[in-house]
Structure formats: structure tokens, C-alpha cells
């Protein structure tokens, strides 16, 4: 298992999607301020499912700009019931629009990219549960889109991540990296003494 950022240690964080915004989601449905927020903003976005998805797509492209808007599964993660964020989705969309209207007088989806960026930054600067929801939304977006979690082969061309696949070429190390130069130390067969 790998250390640090390597899969094994990072595996140590693999519970994150079980937890991502989990506490936020639970708190959102369980605590009084959250219920208040839900009531104030409505549990259903005023624009319906189509408008909701457009808002979430705009959010995804704000978090990961440069991504093709036609990227498959662009907004799938927000409604994926495997992750607790699905319970926050309606609130989150409503809050994006509420902040957009407060800051720029228009719905989030109608804003230019710099204004969308400012709205998301505003949400991340909020306090308490709202901030946790925005933290989780950004976190989940980056994981889903950079790592290509819904298509093992897709990867993410934007960041040059090729994804998985059964026909990857064998080692091309020598052609693409420094010559292997060792200064051997006190070891036997690669093991420490």
C-alpha cells in the first residue's frame, strides 16, 4: 500500500466519500439552522430539475474551468446517493442562486465566469454548515471530475490524466525520465541491514 499521497496512504482517506459532506448533510437535515435555511430557500429549486442541473453544471465548470461542458457525468456526483451530498443538493443550488442574486442581481447560471468564481468563493467564506456544504461541493467536484470516477477509462484530458484501461503500454521509463543513477548504500538485495 502506498504512502503519503500514494494510493495506500491516500487510501487511508478513502472513507472520504462516505464522509464527504456527510456530517454537513446530516446536520443540514437535523439541526434547526439548517431547517431554517431549507425553509427559507425552499427544498426545490424554483427553476425545476433542468434549471438545477444547469446551475450544477455551471458550478462544476467554475470549480474545474476548461473542462468540456459536454463532459459525460459532469453533474452526476451531486445526485449520487452513494454520497451524502445528494441530501444537500437542493439547498446548495438554492444557496448558489441566492448568493448570485445578492452579489450580482442574477441567477448563478446567468453570471460570467469571474462572477461565478466570486459567488463560490463567497460560499466558501461563509460560516458553519453553509461553509461545510461548499467545502464538500468543491471537494466532491474535484474528485469526480479529475479522477473520472464514473468511467474507469475516461481519465481527465484537461489535466493529462489518462485513466485506466487494459492496454496501457509497458514501461517507457527510460525514454521519458532521467537516466537511473544510484549511489548504492549499505543494503543487501534492496533491504536495509
Amino acid at each position, binding site marked *: 500500500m502506498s504512502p503519503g499521497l500514494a*494510493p495506500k*496512504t491516500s487510501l*487511508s482517506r*478513502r472513507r472520504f466519500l462516505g464522509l464527504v459532506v456527510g456530517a454537513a448533510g446530516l446536520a443540514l437535515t437535523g439541526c434547526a439552522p439548517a431547517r431554517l435555511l431549507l425553509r427559507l430557500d425552499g427544498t426545490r429549486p424554483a427553476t425545476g430539475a433542468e434549471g438545477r442541473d444547469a446551475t450544477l453544471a455551471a458550478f462544476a465548470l467554475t470549480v474545474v474551468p476548461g473542462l468540456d461542458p459536454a463532459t459525460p457525468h459532469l453533474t452526476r456526483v451531486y445526485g449520487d446517493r452513494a454520497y451524502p451530498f445528494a441530501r444537500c443538493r437542493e439547498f446548495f443550488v438554492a444557496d448558489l442562486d441566492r448568493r448570485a442574486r445578492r452579489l450580482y442581481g442574477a441567477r448563478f447560471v446567468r453570471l460570467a465566469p469571474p462572477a461565478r468564481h466570486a459567488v463560490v468563493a463567497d460560499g466558501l467564506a461563509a460560516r458553519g454548515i453553509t461553509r461545510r456544504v461548499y467545502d*464538500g461541493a468543491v471537494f466532491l467536484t*474535484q474528485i469526480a471530475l479529475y479522477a473520472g470516477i464514473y468511467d*474507469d477509462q475516461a481519465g481527465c484530458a484537461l489535466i493529462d490524466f489518462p485513466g485506466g484501461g487494459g492496454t496501457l503500454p509497458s514501461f517507457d521509463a527510460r525514454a521519458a525520465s532521467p537516466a*537511473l543513477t544510484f549511489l548504492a548504500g549499505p543494503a543487501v538485495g534492496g533491504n536495509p541491514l
Partner: protein
Amino acid sequence: MNASHPPRSCDTLVIGSGFGGAAVARRLAEAGHHVLLVEKGPAIDPGRDFRQTQDPAYFRRYLKSVGNDALNLTYAEGLGGGSAFYEMVSLRAPSRAFEQVDESGRRLWPTGLDRRTLDPWYALAERELHVEQIAPEDVPPTGRVFAHLLSRLGYSTERAPYAVQGCVGSGWCVAGCIYGAKQSLLLNYLPAAREAGAEILTGFEASRIRPLEHEGYEVTLAPAADDTASGFVIRARLVVLAGGTVGSARLLLRSRPWLPCLSHQVGRNLAWNGGVKIAGLLPDDCPDGDMYRGRSHPGVVSYEFLASHGVMVTAAKALPLQVVAGARFSLPGEAPGARRFGAGHVDLMKRFRHRALVLVAFGLTPPRGTLELDDAGRPRLRLELDRALRAYERRVRELLTSILERSGCRPFDLAWVNGEGRPYPDLHFSSTHHVGSCRMADTPARGVVDVFGEVFGHPGLFVADGATIPSSLAVNSSLTILANAERIAHGILDRRPALTLEGASR
């Protein structure tokens, strides 16, 4: 692989199928014991179940964790334990790891057990896993860049040994190897155990151990996930716990009311290799390395700082999932949050394939962690971030930063994040190399099991996994756990060559 009609009694019940349990199940079955091996997690068919993926849902099926703001431990629950998902690097622990002492100067390892006495068992484990030092031409780019930078500074590096045959360098070792090259226990120990007559039952968790009146134990097994399955009780003359550092301690703690002689050390003395990680951008004069190519582990390690800092240093492959789920990255001098999301973050992520290097150090940190049970019987972790631990982390982080800076790299500022993507409030460690919750010792006042893995005061009850290892190792722990399990298995056979529980039936 599941036993279709699990027996209600057996000679030896092995609980857990990782590096500890697989070895014991195999050796005892080969010696003629009627062995039932029980695994809490699901069965795994390497040809069907492994994927080349970054999908967290896939990993969540097999990998679990326990932790808090100070320390997070990840462990596997699935047939073969961690062997299905490890990086295959198979290192013997350094001699100095066995000579560590506690605050009163007493050796952590039991009398007579050290690197020299464990070497024959290491050799056996290496043969069984087909461990070989990686060939120079197979060292992945991450390791090449790492070796290149260290050699420029005059530091030594070594090619690491791996449990692999026919590696094609696809780079997805930790997601399971779809080519069958990784020598997980699914390819050697477990089939051999079954061939020798061991029965294997997956999806059942041992929830309680109770001694029988004269000899042996009664173990309650409950379905781990399938609500339609029924639990049952099994009697065994020998019971071998191998559920890992978390699982074995949890089971013993749950069973304490029925095990009156159990040492108060159960759950204590947890060690975790003190992993410290940093990352940075490569200097312009360093050629590109395609860090996504080649096996997951970089192929190269350095023991240069074992004597001076008590650490082994290596590099790590950082795929997008690991980068995002691991930390928030920024460059020194930038406004905080400048790269939290948006174009700045994309720019940073673009650099990880060719221009970023992650350094990792594993250290000989003292066994200070504790596992307890909460009111619901779930494991809970405690670790005090004391002055010595903070000093260790700072000293090692400064060492790694110095290596990067003197190599011309530009180190990132890192904020490690929790499962919600939020930075931890203080120093944080994470590990897959946790050991020691039921450590071997000379006396029950100092540990839970004797040097042969037998629980003090409870004859016939053994622990054979990482929980028995008394100290941090400063290297990946799998080979040491397997070697020690082989030693324990052969010790059981030396002391109890023939066993038949009266009334045992298959």
C-alpha cells in the same frame, strides 16, 4: 471460494485472511489440521473484481478506516486482506527497528526475537511471494527522478524488492492487479491453504470468543453484511486471530468479559511508522518523468537517513484522487486559498503528471496509539500529539524539505484534509502500516501475547497478524507480518503437532 456448509467445529479457526491469517491457515492445513478460515470482508476474484479505477466506491467496498484528527488508519476487509491492494514492496525491517526501547530503556521486542532470528522467516516469505529486487529497467519514472535527485546530493538509494511476477507496469497496483502479476495472497497462500483442505468462509465476522470448559474456544460468527444470512457458533481447539491491528484488538476487547486473564495491554502500544509527506515541483533542469507510468511504488528507497533520523525515505505516485483527497496544495508566497478551486487549481493539477514529486518518510516512531471500544463496540482511536512526536515530525519534514530545496525543487505548502475535504486543525498522521495493538512481549504486564503469539493466560488462543508486532518498522510492514506469521505457525506446529477436536466434522 466460500465454504458451502461451514462446520460447527474444527481443529483450528483462523479469523482473518491477510498476511497473518493466510500463512497460519496454510501451514496448519498442510500439517493435517482441520482449518476453517473466516474473513469478514467479501470474497475477491482477481480476474473478475479488480478494476483500474479511481472510483472511491470501489475502494470503499474493501478498505475501511478508523481515526481522529491526529491519526487515521486504513485497513482492508476482503479476502487476502491488504495483499490485494498493497504496492507489493516487500522489505525486511532494519536491525535497529528490533532494538527500539521504551521510556524506561526496555526493549520493545521480546527476548530472542530480532532481525537475525527473523531472517530465515523473511526468506521463506520471500520465496512464497516470489519477491525479487526490481530490475533497473523496470524502475518507474517516479523512482528514477527520486534517485536522480538524491544522487545529485550524494545520497544513496536502493532498488526495492517486490512480490510480483510478470509486471507490465500498468500502474494500478493499489486498485488490484488485473494482470495477475501482483503476488497477492489470493494467488499463493490462500489457494495453497484450500488445496491442503482448509475451508474458507467470507462475509462473516467473529463477534465473541469464549473459552470452553476443558479445552478450546467457542466463537460466535455473525454475517458482516448480508442480513439474510444467519450467524452461528463454532468450537475450535485452537483459535488464531488475524483480523489485523484493528480487528484483532477489537475482537479481544469485545471478548474481555469471557477472557479474564487477558492483559490490560490489549489495544495499547499501537505504532504506525510515522509517515511524513511533502511534495514539490521539479526544477527546470530536471528532465520530465511521466509519474503516472510504472508500478505504484516508485521502485527506489533510501536508507541514507535511517541512522541520523530513524527514517526510510522514498517517493510516491500521486494520482488525481490521491492529490485531491490528500491535501490542499498551494505554492509558497501565494495568497491562502488562491488555488482552492478554479484555474489555479487546474494549473496545479496539470503539473502532477510530469513535474511534481512527492516524498515520503517512514519512521521509527514510538508505539503511543491506543484502540478502545465505544459504547456500540466500535473501535475508537486515541493518540496524544506530544512534544516528542511533534519534534519528530518537524525534524523529518525539515529533512524532506531540505532535500527538495537543495535539489532545486519548489516545495508546496500542504494542508492535509479530512474526509470532508477540510484541513485538519493540527498535525495529522495517516497510515496503512499500523501494528502493535496486541504486541508480543516477555510478560503479560508488557504485552498481550508471548513470543509464539499465544495469548497470555489463554492457552490455544493466538494472535498472528500485525497486531503482534511491537514496534514501528520504518519500512512497509507486510513482509514482516508474513514472516512473523510463518514463525508463529511453525511454532504452533512444533508445540502442538497433532490436533483433533473430539467430534470435529467437516
